[in-house]
């Protein structure tokens, strides 16, 4: 019962948040100097231009447009792209999201698994050469921006050595083909995950290893291995598990910079271009969808907390 109440409350807050975000986005876009059509209508006669403006409702006053847009949002109708005729937010997301998602999932799988392995290594061999190596590596990886990694990999492995295509993405069979295109973008994006998850897990494991119940486990005669596997890992995975949903959300929205370097036609790049071109409907639609995704992820994270940590379960909800 408590849980239901909590969920309903969260849902109402979530709708309210989305409303504010949509409103803010709308007025920011409205405040931006120029508009999406100005470049397109430049060479057209005035009457045609006026008709174009009317078609997208851009001739109406701001408040009226705001009401129309919000009404559309409520019905799930985000409208048609101003730049690309005939395309809607739904069709664009359907087309672009799998590309960004594949890239993101590949980056995440590789990065998170490597990062966790390194984190365990550093924590178990604390103070050894391996520990210092992992610490040095993760600080180095955090200090080099994705962007620089991407450029470096592109320059060396695609440019100099010619092992992989310089830019592009497989156009058919979105999920399975064209591995050679995905190698470099995947690598470039996974370093961040490696560094952050290695650090997170190491810190968390060291924290758990200092707890009294680890002494209890040792005093039961468990081997070092058993203590790590049965007691340390499970407890130190709590922050990892609760951090994962956020990483998943990030990987669906895509990595703008890597998509830009490798000219990958993903959601991130498209989004940035839409903002630059002031494609109002697309920006509105994508923003609301991404924000909704984010809010859902935060909610899922809160629920996950209660699942992985029995201490929280009894209080029924919030951290």
């Amino acid at each position: 019962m408590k849980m239901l109440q909590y969920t309903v409350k969260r849902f109402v807050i979530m709708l309210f948040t989305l409303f504010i975000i949509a409103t803010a986005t709308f007025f920011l876009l409205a405040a931006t100097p120029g508009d999406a059509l100005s470049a397109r209508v430049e060479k057209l006669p005035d009457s045609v231009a006026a008709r174009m403006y009317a078609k997208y409702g851009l001739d109406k006053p701001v408040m009226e447009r705001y009401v129309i847009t919000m009404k559309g949002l409520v019905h799930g109708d985000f409208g048609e792209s101003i730049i690309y005729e005939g395309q809607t937010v739904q069709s664009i997301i359907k087309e672009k999201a799998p590309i960004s998602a594949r890239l993101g999932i590949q980056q995440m799988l590789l990065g998170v698994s490597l990062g966790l392995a390194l984190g365990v290594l550093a924590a178990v061999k604390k103070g050894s050469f391996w520990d210092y190596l992992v610490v040095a590596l993760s600080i180095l990886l955090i200090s080099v921006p994705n962007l620089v990694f991407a450029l470096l990999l592109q320059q060396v492995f695609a440019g100099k050595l010619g092992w992989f295509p310089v830019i592009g993405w497989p156009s058919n069979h979105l999920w399975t083909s064209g591995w050679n295109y995905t190698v470099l973008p995947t690598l470039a994006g996974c370093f961040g995950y490696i560094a952050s998850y290695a650090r997170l897990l190491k810190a968390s494991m060291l924290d758990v290893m200092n707890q009294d119940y680890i002494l209890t486990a040792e005093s039961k005669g468990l081997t070092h291995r058993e203590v790590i596997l049965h007691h340390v890992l499970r407890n130190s995975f709590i922050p990892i598990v609760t951090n994962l949903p956020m990483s998943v959300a990030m990987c669906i929205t895509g990595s703008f910079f890597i998509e830009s370097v490798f000219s990958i036609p993903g959601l991130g790049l498209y989004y940035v271009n839409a903002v630059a071109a002031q494609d109002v409907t697309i920006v509105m639609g994508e923003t609301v969808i991404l924000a909704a995704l984010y809010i859902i992820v935060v909610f899922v994270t809160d629920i996950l907390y209660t699942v992985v940590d029995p201490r929280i379960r009894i209080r029924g909800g919030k951290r």
Partner: protein
Amino acid sequence: MSEKLLEVKNLRVSYHTYAGEVQSVRGVSFTVNKGETVAVVGESGCGKSVTAKSIMRLIKTPPAEIKEGSEIIFDGEDVLQFNEKRLCAYRGGEVAMVFQDALAALNPTMTVGNQIIENLRHHTKLSKKEAKARAVELLRMVGIPQPESRVDQYPHEFSGGMRQRVMIAIAFACDPKLLIADEPTTALDVTIQAQIIDLIKALQKEKNASVILITHDLGVVANIADRIVVMYAGQIVERGTSIEVFHHPRHPYTNALLEAVPRLDLQNKQQLASIEGTPPDLIAPPKGCPFCTRCKYCMEICCEQQPPVLNFGDGHEASCWLYQLETPAADAPFTQEAHYEG
């Protein structure tokens, strides 16, 4: 004579810190016989917990270091020489430990049943089902009501006293020969303290186990310990049978500790005594008696030289210069009847 179960010889443990080497335990020796309860008493920081953890080999090295020449003989074997396999059989199987803060000492994400079962399965060949049945039985044995349903609950669902009972159930799961109880009652309400001590006492009788009870509370010790070891600043300052130490304390520190215990049996309600000052810094231990700065009867020699260990008969020993005086110190009541044997 009863048989020796555990013999700690010249145990020295140091911690390496930024500030320097802290000599937590400085040459501690004592024995525990089979079926006997030995209480190790002292203030916090006197090295009693470190001693207990050393016996279990739970000291983290580094930053700690168990010095060369230390020996811990358990049933004829040196614990400090155990390999990992032998150590795993020893811990939990032959020696078990109960910690001060049961909430911190129980894994929060594991049901209490599983924490008992883990211990059972590690040292016996019980199947999962048998181990679970045994876990329920153990919980009943330590006095937890409705053990069948409690066995699947998490530690935070238990009260403080119940959690300590669970810890005791885990400790006694594999019938250890020695139980080390490190301040088992400190975190509990006074009313619960006696229950826990009685439980330990009853189980010890039943299983014929030895117990090392680490505590700073002499009141807890009185009705359970056979012998008492008093530690101060990493050394043993006095030891003897419970009766001897309680009725004829020889070391001024023991005496001060006893005066600090609240009592109802005194005629003229004396003011509760406290011990002024703080224990010495163990990074640079004093060359003389470590208690000298806080001792009411401190003499010149106390600041210069470590006092000798004097035997007062029947295993009662104390390290103090006061018994080397030609005429007993007039204001030190406990030395008046001094008649040590050389």
